[in-house]
């Protein structure tokens, strides 16, 4: 798997996680809603081993061990807030690395001419 493919998987996973966080935050007042998440590291490992052949399909699980409110909802604001910030930074890191990769290719093309 090339570095660029890896980075693209990384960004896809970060975007997917962002979507789950947005969903958790949107449903903070929905009775019975359970917090959902993915295991980022194991998904990244899985993505690398399948060589980018199949479409991305991370395993989504309901996060255990969170305090449940009387209406059955267990969204924790602090947890989601932290993850939101973290996912944003991860995405930024991915974008930055991908940009450098493109610059490297572009430099190679220019030097070659």
């Amino acid at each position, binding site marked *: 798997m090339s570095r660029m493919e890896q980075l693209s998987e990384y960004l896809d996973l970060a975007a997917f996680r962002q*979507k789950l966080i947005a*969903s958790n935050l949107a*449903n*903070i007042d929905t009775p019975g809603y359970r917090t*959902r998440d993915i295991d980022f590291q194991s998904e990244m490992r899985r993505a690398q081993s399948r060589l980018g052949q199949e479409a991305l399909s991370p395993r989504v699980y309901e996060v255990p061990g969170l305090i449940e409110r009387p209406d059955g909802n267990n969204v924790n604001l602090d947890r989601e807030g932290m993850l939101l910030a973290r996912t*944003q930074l991860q995405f930024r890191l991915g974008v930055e690395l991908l940009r450098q990769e493109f610059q490297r290719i572009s430099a190679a093309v220019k030097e070659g001419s």
Partner: protein
Amino acid sequence: MNLLGVLEISGSALTAERQRAEVLASNLANAQTTRTAKGGPYQRQMVVFGAREAGQGRFAGVLSDFTDRYAQGVAVKRVVPDPTPPVQRYEPEHPDADSQGYVAYPAINPIEEMVNLMGAARSYELNVAAVQATKNMISESLEILGQ
């Protein structure tokens, strides 16, 4: 996978929380209303939230990828009246008083409504923060294109 779908999810929460705030404001405004079109005092309304598949029933829904099975927006499913009986107050000179001189007022506790309203406002802010974060990510991803 697209980040624009994330905006739709947070957007659905903004709409739902605003609707909730509207219903709460209506409850507060009508806390003393003794006359309605249906007759009798105003009845307190409550919103019921439910998770909603992103892009459901729309063209985008047809094209939705698997992520939409897990990532859900939110919507106001129903607005239900509070079955609590009205509060009877003795005001014989009131035009809506019954033969014993009692007037039926809606069973609305303004403090409870205010607390709910604050909850709705906070949840709204929270989702605005999520929209802001997603917007930043989208504009960052555009930087890949430029130099």
